[in-house]
């Protein structure tokens, strides 16, 4: 099970959880497990075309999945998937 880190702005949709353990062999499968468990996160993460929204950065450990294989990127048991939105607070 991969560890998934939930950013503060999505925690209202995950019952306040900041970290979840989710099944999935790829980044896409892990995120699918997230949105099926917490459906309110779906419109924040995915567009109507089921592609990851451009304003959502997803990292596998310390690397942006856009420079890996995107949603196809393989996820191991000890990996961490981090969802990171831009913030503008100053």
């Amino acid at each position, binding site marked *: 099970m991969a560890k998934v880190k939930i*950013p*503060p*702005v999505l925690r209202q949709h995950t019952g306040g959880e900041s970290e979840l353990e989710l099944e999935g062999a790829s980044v896409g499968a892990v995120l699918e497990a997230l949105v099926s468990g917490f459906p309110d996160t779906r419109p*924040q993460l995915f567009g109507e075309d089921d592609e990851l929204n*451009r*304003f*959502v*950065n997803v*990292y596998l450990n*310390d*690397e*942006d999945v856009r*420079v890996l294989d995107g949603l196809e990127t393989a996820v191991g048991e000890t990996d961490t998937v*981090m969802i*990171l*939105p*831009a*913030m*503008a*607070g*100053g």
Partner: protein
Amino acid sequence: MESGTSGKIELEEIPVDRAREEIESGGVILLDTREPHEHSAAHIDGCLLIPPAMVADNVEQQIPDRSARVIVYCAAGARSELAARQMIELGYEDVANMTGGIAEWQQRGFPVVSEAALTPEQRNRYSRHILLPEVGADGQVRMLESKALLLGAGGLGAPTALYLAAAGIGTIGIVDDDVVDASNLQRQVIHDTARIGQPKTASARQTIEGLNPDVDVVEYGTRLDADNVLEIIGAYDVIVDGADNFPTRYLLNDASVRLGKPVVSASILGFDGQISTFVPEEGPCYRCLYPSPPPPELAPSCSANGVLGVMAGVMGLLQANEVIKLVLGIGEPLIGRLLLYEALSTRFTELRVRRDPDCPVCGAGAPEIEDLGKFPDYEAFCGGHTGS
């Protein structure tokens, strides 16, 4: 390193013009072997100092790598010749003596640094910096000559401005069109209760001038927009982004890439902070990291969501630290790295940020910029974000 018939070790002599070429192309350690008062009066930028009587004892500590290329100089070349020979006996493999010393160097009109540029008061005020080999008097002079622009005198800008001012960054520009509100004071420590209602730039100036009279404060009581951005940022060496809205962050990014200005960018919300340093051509830009802004419901402002005051201090000081490193050219700035700080768990996480070859602003296919005055409509691009 052969022994000649005279018993003397052969020593490479290098004329000042060739020494200068080597120094400018980098990879050389330059060693001044004169007394501290001579060094203070004038020396070549970036050199180490070991007085003649201390070379044998101190050189291994200051130059641990015996295979390093070292050019040694003194006033006219005699003391440095002795020092170079001592170093070769200690096993240094690539030492050269600069013929004619700094006297010849200055006669040729080559540049020197004079600590006379610092007044006795400044030498005392910045003494803890000057003691640091990475800063020294040269670095302090460089800081006093440098110019940093702060976007916002708010949560991030307040602590950044205080520490940059204390450090002696000589010119600090501040862009902010807001006035001090009582609700700012939980984190914006450059302002105070008596200044509620005053423009933030004026309040910041008052605090900075009280802290350090060496600093020139330039106030911009306006919002950064497409018409003023190039003129405002063009005058500065480093830009510190502590803006509270996406349109300004994207505008600043696009303008700073055009002008080749480094940006130290941080943001805060709740108990979380992010920081990265964007140096055009050396690393990614803000758009490489965030190609497009999130919709407003995914990016609440601090005024709507709340922010721990201390978070602003932590992230603002990390920004000040980046500015000083960029100005001095020391250490490893956060180029290509995004540092996250979670205050509740007290955890730092570092993520990699790559240059996006398809970046519309800094990518290989980015259009050649001909008309510097034109920028897209950032308010529309950012879909209703207008800041708080």
